[in-house]
């Protein structure tokens, strides 16, 4: 797998299009979402949208509220204020319709280490009501695609970190979602594994038209053509094509644009953390 620098979309914000136009329905729409843990406010009036067949990076420091947002989108947490829609389905009012269109790769590993690769995939398929024969067929397909066909019977704990991440992505795609969320999917991986996984996900956007929301704190995972959401201390500071955000900030690259937006002293390396 190689990272793909070409980017297919840079659409106008979907919400700017007429609501009665079916194509105006965003893959993901976050409208006025706020969330608190007791007195601590984790998200404050967050608004943005992810279009179909687009790669949107959600950039923020550790503790910016990315994982809280992911927990709200996946309905692990209840929504306290605002609305989240997945292809128009309200996650609070119609969770089944919304969740079946959604694939998720969480920050922490969610594979069952004691089960084999194929058993993990079949379990996930069952949770989506996919019959065993079809599940097996799809599993073989995705394992071939990610180069793990020969490891189908291996225990997951015997895989490398990069292989586990690829398996998690494959699992998230098993029920053929149209929106894929990845929360810090490359954390803890070496440079090559990171590039492979990022390239694989970008390829999915192009080949399968999946909308992707990629949460990260690593600047070098974002390319100028990406849609970018900058989240800082629970607030969206900027949203739009990365090139526009860089230009608006009067910066020369994403790294310095992020520093100007947040006023944060960021390490001159490639990470926001």
């Amino acid at each position, binding site marked *: 797998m190689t990272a793909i620098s070409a980017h297919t979309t840079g659409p106008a914000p979907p919400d700017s299009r007429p609501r009665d136009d079916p194509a105006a329905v965003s893959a993901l729409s976050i409208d006025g979402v706020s969330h608190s843990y007791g007195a601590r406010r*984790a998200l404050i009036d967050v608004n943005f949208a992810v279009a179909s067949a687009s790669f949107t990076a959600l950039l923020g420091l550790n503790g910016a509220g990315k994982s809280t947002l992911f927990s709200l989108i996946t309905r*692990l*947490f209840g929504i306290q204020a605002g609305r989240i829609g997945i292809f128009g389905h309200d996650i609070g009012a119609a969770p089944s319709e*919304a969740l079946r269109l959604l694939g998720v790769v969480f920050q*922490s590993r*969610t594979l069952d280490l004691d089960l084999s690769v194929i058993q993990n995939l079949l379990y996930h*398929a*069952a949770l989506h009501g996919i019959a065993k024969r079809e599940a097996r067929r799809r599993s073989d397909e995705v394992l071939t695609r990610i180069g793990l066909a020969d490891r189908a019977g291996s225990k997951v704990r015997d895989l490398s970190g990069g292989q586990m991440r690829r398996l998690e992505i494959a699992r998230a795609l098993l029920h053929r979602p*149209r929106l894929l969320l990845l929360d810090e999917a490359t954390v803890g991986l070496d440079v090559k594994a990171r590039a492979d996984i990022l390239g694989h996900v970008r390829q999915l956007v192009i080949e399968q038209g999946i909308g992707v929301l990629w949460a990260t704190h690593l600047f070098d995972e974002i390319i100028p053509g990406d849609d970018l959401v900058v989240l800082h201390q629970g607030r969206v500071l900027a949203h739009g094509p990365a090139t526009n955000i860089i230009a608006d900030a009067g910066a020369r690259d994403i790294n310095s644009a992020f520093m100007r937006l947040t006023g944060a002293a960021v390490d001159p390396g490639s990470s926001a953390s």
Partner: protein
Amino acid sequence: MSSTSVNRAPSGFSLTQYATCLNGIVWREALRFVHQRERFVSALVRPLVWLFIFAAGFRQVLGISIIPPYETYILYEVYIAPGLMAMIQLFNGMQSSLSMVYDREMGNMRTLLVSPLPRWYLLFGKLVAGTAVSLLQVYAFLVIAWFWDIAPPPIGYFTVLPALILSGLMLGALGMLISSGIKQLENFAGVMNFVIFPMFFASSALYPLWRVQEGSPLLYYVCQFNPFTHAVELIRFALYGQTNWISLAVVFCCTTAFMIGAIYAYDPSRGLVRRAPAGGEA
């Protein structure tokens, strides 16, 4: 990709899909059980120790008079067998909830909870899976107990099954309810001590309630209000082809109440919502 297919997205799941999901959850629980052989062995050793050592030692001390459902004098081992069957289910229910806490800490639980099927159904599936595992353990115990001259009427092996399913669901739902309130795995050991031992000892598992009443009227009332007592009595009567209607009603009502409580607690707008993400996540 066009966004228009939002209108074509099916709004519900077929019965086959529900069955596939349930089957998957039970299958995964069974696989985990098979992989954890020591769990199966310890689940059997625990009641067998009580049966072979404790009951043998107390046989001469604790005489059992003729009480329903027994029609004659019985050995103490025969008396405590239903209590030990319920104990297997009690431990299994708590162990299942322990695995839910573990799954939640390790992230596996998220796989289950982001399924598009209704959350109450997913939790019910977990409960059914845990109960199915407990049935395997109980019948394995009954086979071994048969060689120890604990031989209920042959029909009892069949009539006890519905009672075991209901009591397994009740104790599993209780464990699930407890697990919803536990934030960390380390906290679970304390809960085990505060739940398992009081429930087991303040029940009719080891001694008939009339004997408890002679010793301590207060403890007698505690035992009467303990749902585990009714699980034991339900199993005891069913093992002899009879029904203890009061115990059946209590166990049924408790199962329903615990299940509703667990579903409420795992509701995203209530149970899990108050917790901030663990570790460095936010």
